[in-house]
């Protein structure tokens, strides 16, 4: 039987605009983990055992070379892991005992913006203060860009991951691309 797999929302988009590099990241699986009430300590221990990572906070993600954990709202964690066919199944043996899981890989588009002027481009569309003293390495925020819900994560001095809904991926790309063009 043929195995079907979904295309990424922007089909592997990659472009340089002035000193800015924009590319779609699509080599990940994204699983939402909802923590049952009053079991945060148990969940934190399982996260430590599974990923060797501490619990993220609402403003700071935790990461090693493979995995990134985000606290997207109280009692909800997003785990971004290397892409696998069925991440729920993979995680169910361990984390599944401490959280309700939903595979959200296809619900999101992830853009990476990098380059010396990336922050200048983002300043035009992002309301969060991205100064490196305020928004440090691995800092994250859920906010909006051009009225589209966005999660922004700083992965390097001038590199950010931007996550938004896959259903409006092209509009989101247009907003970021246009901002990059305007400062180039």
């Amino acid at each position, binding site marked *: 039987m043929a195995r079907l797999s979904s295309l990424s929302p922007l089909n592997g988009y990659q472009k340089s605009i002035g000193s800015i590099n924009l590319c779609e990241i699509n080599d990940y699986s994204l699983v939402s983990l909802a923590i049952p*009430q009053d079991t945060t300590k148990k969940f934190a221990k399982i996260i430590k055992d599974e990923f060797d990572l501490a619990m993220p906070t*609402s*403003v700071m993600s935790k990461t090693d070379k493979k995995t990134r954990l985000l606290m*997207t*709202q*109280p009692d909800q964690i997003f785990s971004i892991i290397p892409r696998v066919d069925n991440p729920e199944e993979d995680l169910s043996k361990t984390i599944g005992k401490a959280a309700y899981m939903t595979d959200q890989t296809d619900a999101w588009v992830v853009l990476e913006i990098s380059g010396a002027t990336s922050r200048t481009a983002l300043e035009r569309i992002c*309301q969060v203060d991205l100064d490196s003293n305020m928004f440090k390495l691995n800092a994250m*925020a*859920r*906010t*909006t860009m051009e009225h589209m*819900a966005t999660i922004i994560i700083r992965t390097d001095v001038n590199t950010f991951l931007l996550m938004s809904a896959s259903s409006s991926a092209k509009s989101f790309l247009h907003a970021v691309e246009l901002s990059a063009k305007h400062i180039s």
Partner: protein
Amino acid sequence: MIINHPLLGPRDANEFVHLGDESLIDRPDGMADDAANKFHNYMYLRDNPAGKYRELWYHDAGDRSWLVVTRDTLTHEIFDVELARDVARARGRSK
């Protein structure tokens, strides 16, 4: 207007949706003898003060948390921002 989110820090008000009076947290018991009267008050009666007012705000474009914001309706000065969950639990709610 900037709302100082208790978990996330200062955020622009346009990330939030305003719902109204924080008394909406205290939903009456629908099985009580005077439930109809209490629900009438719950649904329709508001004080609408010119001054300090406690309101529910929802962080729609953020972490989806409900907040109780104490705001001056004349000046928009914000005095306090609490997680609605904490307010409800302090009143004996389990969730």
